[in-house]
């Protein structure tokens, strides 16, 4: 999962997955629609990336309803939080390292 040389997390290689993690890092709970709006992606595209983040254990999914409409919200798990902060540390180190 982790690149042994740089310490970067492969899961966060993708702009959308990284975006989801960035948003969830500073928001307790965000709905599917809000994520879609902020990341400017299509339903299918976002769903695929959310599933992969969930499979990695980085996301918690809460399915709820507003009236009859489904309202799915996402929040970050402890391990997701750690993976994300490790990834940022690795990015910082890379920037420092090359300088």
């Amino acid at each position: 999962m982790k690149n042994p040389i740089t310490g970067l997390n492969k899961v966060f290689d993708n702009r959308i997955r990284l975006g989801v993690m960035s948003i969830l890092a500073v928001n307790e709970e965000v709905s599917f629609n809000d994520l879609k709006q902020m990341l400017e992606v299509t339903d299918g595209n976002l769903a695929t990336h959310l599933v992969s983040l969930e499979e990695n254990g980085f996301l918690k999914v809460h399915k709820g309803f507003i009236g009859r409409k489904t309202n799915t919200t996402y929040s970050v798990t402890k391990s997701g939080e750690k993976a994300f902060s490790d990834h940022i540390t690795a990015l910082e180190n890379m920037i420092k390292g090359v300088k």
Partner: protein
Amino acid sequence: MSEQNQQQDTIREVRDIRQMMERSSRFISLSGLSGVAAGVFALAGAAIARFGIFKDYYFRYTELGHWSRDEFRQLKIQLLALAAGVFVAAFLSAFYFTWRKSHQQGVSLWNHTSRRLFWNTVIPLATGGLFILGMLQYNDWDFVAPACLIFYGLALVNASKYTLTDIRYLGYCEIIVGLISMKWIGYGLYFWAAGFGILHIIYGIVMWWKYERA
């Protein structure tokens, strides 16, 4: 990939992360021009009150030595109508400039950050509004201006957690002006004009200078 390229990528990635964190947690499209417009309407409203509504009123009072019940009632209605007019004009103009800025930034005006900002501003603000109406029920006009300023200031301090943090300082200033005005009851209108007019305009210009000047 060369080292140079990789570094560029990394920097871009960090910038993306930052942007997403900011965009998703704070509503950043509040325009400084909104503040200027609201301030201008507030000053205009205060001027109408001072030189329009109150002009005759003071004159008649000194002439007759008292005012009739009807006159007082009419004065109240005129002032409330004026206040409502100023509020609507300020709100619409503020809304317009913020809408324009969010349009330029390509973010939607009604998302979860603006919703959160809206509710966190409205709760202290509406409480203040109802409190003031409650006071007016007992014909207590003395504390209208201080209460407007203080509740508005508190609303801004609360709002600052969900938008550009600079608005917190405007909130502090409004609270201070409100508290000071308690000392000079009867001059409420001047403090009101200073707090809602002048402070808004100064704040708006500073914000515009800082974030929007192209």
